[in-house]
């Protein structure tokens, strides 16, 4: 499944998510539900900044896996899995656990689309050739 399909599934599944963007460790956008590329880049940059600042919260070398910021008029979620990241904005007072679950699923689905850091895909079923075809 590619990033666009994973994001399309995400917004279809979760009505609480308004916008989502997939980006990598360098901040480059891999996919977004936002039509405007500038907005997608802006969301990715702000989310990367949020993660960076969250990393500085603890002095120990412990990685931040997810962040949730609850604001008066909406929430911001960021989930990190190795080099892959996903950020999303939601309505106010969403079901936090459900949003995190959906974002992690999306991140996993998008990772299955390929690339160096992608986990192994399910092996394709092979059909044996009949002796007379060989």
């Amino acid at each position, binding site marked *: 499944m590619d990033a666009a399909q994973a994001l399309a599934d995400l917004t279809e599944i979760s009505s609480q998510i*308004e916008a989502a963007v997939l980006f990598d460790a360098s901040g480059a956008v891999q996919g977004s539900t*936002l039509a405007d590329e500038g907005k997608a880049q802006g969301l990715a940059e702000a989310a990367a*900044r949020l993660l960076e600042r969250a990393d500085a919260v*603890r002095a120990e070398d412990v990685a931040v896996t997810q962040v949730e910021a609850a604001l008066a008029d909406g929430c*911001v979620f960021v989930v990190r899995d190795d080099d892959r990241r996903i*950020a999303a*904005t939601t309505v106010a007072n969403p079901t936090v656990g459900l949003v995190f679950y959906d974002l992690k699923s999306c991140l996993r689905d998008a990772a299955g689309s390929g690339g160096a850091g992608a986990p192994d895909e399910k092996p394709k079923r092979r059909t044996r050739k009949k002796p007379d075809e060989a």
Partner: protein
Amino acid sequence: MKRRLLALLGFATGVLAGSVVLRRQFGKRRDRVEVYFDDGAMVSYTDGAVEASPLLDAARDALNAARS
């Protein structure tokens, strides 16, 4: 009559004080941010805390970027 009036006044004062306390407690939710770590730990900061400010600023930027 006077006793009844005093009881009524006491009741009204109690209701008023209760509503003020409830409104202060639940009426205005403060912005907050929760950070989850790889080792299972989680920290939560509410708006007003020194640590919360840079995190909430970035979150507000993210929300504005998506909605602008």
